[in-house]
């Protein structure tokens, strides 16, 4: 607009020397910052907008929310699956956030991210299981529940009036085909795992699990719980592991899904002598993992650089 007025005939009229004294230009207000400096990317306003690089930024931001949540881990053997999570209360006065939910006798889920979203999805899963049980008098196969959950998450990535669920779910379940551990993303993807960790400082737990996972298939139930506790300890980064900061749940052959009570967990921690620094080498992987964790948010911030998290 300025340009037109500068050069056009109207401008000449306006800019011509006036016969009368001219008021100074009205004050246009303080200089404003461009909107584009507020948001990281240009194409992230809603979930139904693609970026030129073929990414959906809203979905990726939802996955960031998962990374910010407190850690949750899962691991499985041929006959058992163990879920564990770090439970931090806001203050000494409040109770812990519930992060592990029983979905049915044979399925349980641990969440990381927006726990409200996780609660709502758990209710959906419980509903699906109970409806299937009622119609077929048989437990819902875990693989099918996980696909239904993933399809539900996908819908939220393709509607302009919705937002993706900001929660990652570790689904542990037992069915005819054996013990299963799945991870459901906000993107609508799901993967099956031998062991996995999600949430903040989960890389430390993942490193530990990567070292040990080959033994998991034939491990006993108690060894599996011990490994879960060790993995949780990794995410605590030096803090003492006690039953008040973590929750453990188990499901297995002949053992319906249930959360272990505080007393049992503390006994196991004491029995395995997990509290305190055990191995020297353990300190180094932790330090490296700490650096990696802080580098992650930076990678995500660089627009257009790095692999899109959904592609992993």
């Amino acid at each position: 607009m300025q340009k037109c007025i500068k050069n056009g005939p109207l401008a000449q009229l306006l800019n011509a020397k006036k016969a009368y004294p001219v008021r100074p230009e009205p004050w246009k207000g303080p200089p404003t910052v461009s909107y584009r400096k507020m948001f990281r990317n240009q194409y992230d306003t809603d979930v139904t907008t693609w970026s030129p690089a073929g990414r959906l930024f809203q979905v990726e931001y939802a996955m960031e929310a998962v990374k910010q949540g407190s850690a949750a881990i899962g691991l499985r053997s041929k006959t058992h699956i163990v879920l564990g999570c770090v439970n931090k209360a806001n203050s000494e006065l409040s109770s812990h956030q519930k992060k592990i939910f029983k979905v049915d006798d044979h399925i349980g889920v641990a969440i990381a991210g927006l726990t409200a979203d996780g609660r709502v999805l758990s209710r959906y899963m419980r509903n699906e299981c109970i409806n299937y049980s009622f119609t077929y008098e048989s437990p819902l196969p875990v693989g099918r529940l996980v696909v239904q959950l993933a399809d539900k998450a996908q819908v939220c990535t393709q509607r302009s009036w919705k937002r993706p669920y900001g929660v990652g779910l570790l689904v542990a379940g037992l069915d005819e085909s054996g013990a299963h551990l799945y991870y459901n993303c906000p993107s609508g993807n799901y993967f099956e795992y031998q062991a996995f960790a999600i949430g903040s400082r989960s890389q430390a737990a993942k490193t530990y699990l990567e070292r040990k996972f080959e033994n998991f298939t034939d491990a006993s139930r108690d060894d599996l719980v011990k490994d879960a506790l060790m993995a949780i300890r990794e995410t605590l980064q030096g803090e003492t592991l006690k039953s008040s900061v973590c929750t453990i749940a188990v499901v297995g052959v002949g053992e319906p899904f249930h959360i272990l009570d505080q007393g049992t967990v503390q006994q196991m921690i004491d029995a395995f002598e997990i509290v305190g620094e055990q191995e020297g080498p353990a300190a180094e992987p932790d330090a490296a993992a700490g650096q990696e964790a802080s580098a992650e948010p930076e990678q995500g911030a660089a627009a257009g650089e790095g692999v899109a998290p959904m592609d992993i």
Partner: protein
Amino acid sequence: MNFMASKQPENSLLGPEADSQRTLYPYVTGTSVVALKYKDGILMAADMGGSYGSTLRYKSVERMKPIGKHSLLGASGEISDFQEILRYLDELILYDNMWDDGNSLGPKEVHNYLTRVMYNRRNKFNPLWNSLVLGGVKNGQKYLGTVSMIGVNFEDNHVATGFGNHLARPILRQEWHENLSYEDGVRLLEKCMRVLLYRDRSAINKLQIAKITEEGMTISQPYSLKTYWEFSAFANPAQGAVGTW
């Protein structure tokens, strides 16, 4: 939805059913189905008759059908309702296969699904006029159950529908035992079917026997049972009571 209801002319031939959109009576019916568990799986027998009231109208009706990989369904009662049930199950099995994930609906699941269907229809006063027998084997587990048109369902080692309840089950209770061989199982079923042939007027002498095991389902070609009508009591039934017929 008014345009969808059939318009009955004033002088309708339908009589009391004129304004009913629900099942009131069966028309073409099949008679008893008998089934038992044996060593390797389930054996089921049914004749091939479809009666239209007291007329033995259709003589090649297959009243037993395989369902999915693991189950076998036999039905007595209204044949058209049986065909409708087969359509429901076809859709159920189709969706089950579409998951393509190594899980499959076994006989227990199909039986419970059918129970839900039958019971819900009964609650709407619009039943599927059938008594169903569902048998199968999955992962070495044998399963045999039954559902009636009012949704009564149970599992047992041997079941029968219709007249079979009164004539076949006493024989089965007496002579069934665990781990029957295939030959013994067939012999036992044939004994039940012979009694039904003598005493049930809607039975015809053309039956099939179906077998389902872990390997799969086979159904025999139709065949007839040998009967003996020369019992002296049948020869002159009025002997002991002059004037009777």
